[in-house]
């Protein structure tokens, strides 16, 4: 969370993480080059670059796509989610090198514009197996470019979280076309089943993780229905909420995070204004609700980000009936101050 835009937002943790990314990239490229030269010494330098960067980019894309569902299934992965942006931009740069060298090697020797050549050299668009796989790669790279170019809070603020999120969800489309790019391209020439098996295992892992996470989190969308009075519904027992943390319930069509802190209870929308992170999975730090994804903070009483930030969350009325926590599912307007419910010491 920063007030001013910086080209790259680095802190100690991100620098350490970026160092790991650079070491990982170099190790992968050197290993791939070594193996290729050992098993296929006639490979040209251009071919070596195209293959090593292509393999690394698809591997990185798999790792990136695992982070989201893993963080939803296990909070220990949240620090990786916090640092995911730099891994994504690095992956785009590697993929761009792959794309640039491929276009140079395969499409610049003729008398047709290389980009036109890319789209017209193989016109079997009606065939599934002979579909021009390089066009699929180009489409995937274009999506990755749009994502990398807008991977900055400046764009998030100016596009708005909804449009930004919709744009970045296109990574799933990119994944789809890039898997087909590999299957209909490189793997058509690969006789060893190892690469095909590795790709299939990676694909099944990604799909399984996303489906498991989606179905698991969908369970949390079941509305609480036990009506206790005209306006309030039963949410949970007081003991269910850990100190300085929240319990998340679904009411009024959206999830609500009920926080317990300093002998008080407050409830706000579970959806962070930054990137829709799950606030109820965060904790109270320095008196503020802190989003587990990127550290955005809100005052639990009124749902407002501390000045000079301007984000505001809907807030909710709570009541205590003995140990039963009751919630009014009708959200108050964003930023409305609601006096926290005091927990009387028995």
């Amino acid at each position: 969370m920063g007030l001013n835009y910086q080209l790259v937002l680095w802190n100690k943790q991100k620098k350490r993480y970026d160092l790991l990314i650079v070491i990982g990239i170099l190790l992968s490229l050197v290993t791939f080059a070594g193996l290729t030269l050992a098993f296929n010494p006639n490979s040209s330098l251009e071919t070596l670059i195209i293959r090593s960067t292509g393999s690394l980019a698809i591997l990185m894309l798999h790792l990136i796509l695992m982070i989201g569902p893993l963080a939803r299934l296990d909070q220990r992965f949240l620090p990786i989610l916090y640092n995911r942006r730099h891994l994504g931009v690095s992956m785009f740069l590697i993929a761009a090198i792959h794309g640039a060298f491929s276009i140079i090697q395969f499409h610049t020797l003729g008398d047709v514009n290389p980009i036109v050549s890319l789209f017209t050299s193989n016109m079997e668009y009606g065939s599934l197996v002979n579909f021009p796989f390089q066009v699929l790669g180009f489409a995937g790279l274009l999506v990755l470019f749009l994502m990398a170019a807008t991977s900055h809070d400046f764009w998030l603020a100016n596009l708005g979280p909804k449009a930004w999120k919709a744009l970045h969800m296109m990574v799933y489309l990119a994944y789809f076309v890039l898997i087909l790019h590999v299957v209909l391209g490189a793997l058509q020439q690969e006789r060893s089943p190892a690469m095909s098996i590795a790709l299939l295992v990676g694909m099944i892992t990604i799909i399984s993780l996303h489906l498991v996470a989606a179905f698991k989190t969908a369970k949390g969308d079941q509305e609480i229905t036990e009506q206790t009075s005209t306006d309030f519904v039963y949410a949970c027992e007081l003991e269910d909420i850990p100190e300085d943390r929240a319990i998340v319930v679904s009411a009024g069509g959206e999830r609500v995070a009920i926080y317990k802190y300093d002998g008080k209870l407050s409830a706000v929308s579970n959806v962070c204004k930054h990137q829709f992170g799950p606030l109820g999975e965060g904790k109270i730090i320095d008196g503020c609700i802190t989003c587990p994804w990127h550290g955005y903070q809100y005052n639990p009483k009124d749902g407002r980000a501390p000045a000079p930030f301007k984000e505001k969350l809907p807030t909710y009325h709570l009541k205590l009936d003995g140990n039963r926590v009751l919630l009014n599912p009708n959200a108050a307007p964003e930023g409305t101050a609601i006096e926290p419910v005091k927990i009387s010491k028995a």
Partner: protein
Amino acid sequence: MNRSLRKRHQWTWIFVALLLPAIAVYGLMSAPAFATEQVADPTSVAAIGQVLNSYEDDVVKLNFRGTSTTATQLELILKIPPKSAQTLVYYTKDGQAEQQSELLVGTIGRRGVYRFDFPQGVDGLYWFDPIKNEPISTINF
């Protein structure tokens, strides 16, 4: 995430789970029966007998070599490297240019001398670019 985003994620991945593995497996099963990149580089094959017949144009010289009166080896001297990033050479039979594995001769790339087995019954050469999936040229003997 809010509820609508969670639903969108869920339906996206159900769609991906149903479609992507099916297309990917079909694509892998449909891979050609031979790996064009692993066709042996025929530049190191030794010459057989003497030249019985020849053909030459601006790009290539073909020597038909053998120890008797029957040619058993095709010596291809490439004068100009092809523009395509990868070039496969097939024999043609009955004037038909087809990408059949039994008619695949090998790959050519750099300028130089390439030698291939020369079977009976073939009547020409057919050059093909497997990356762009398009024919390059045909030479009739």
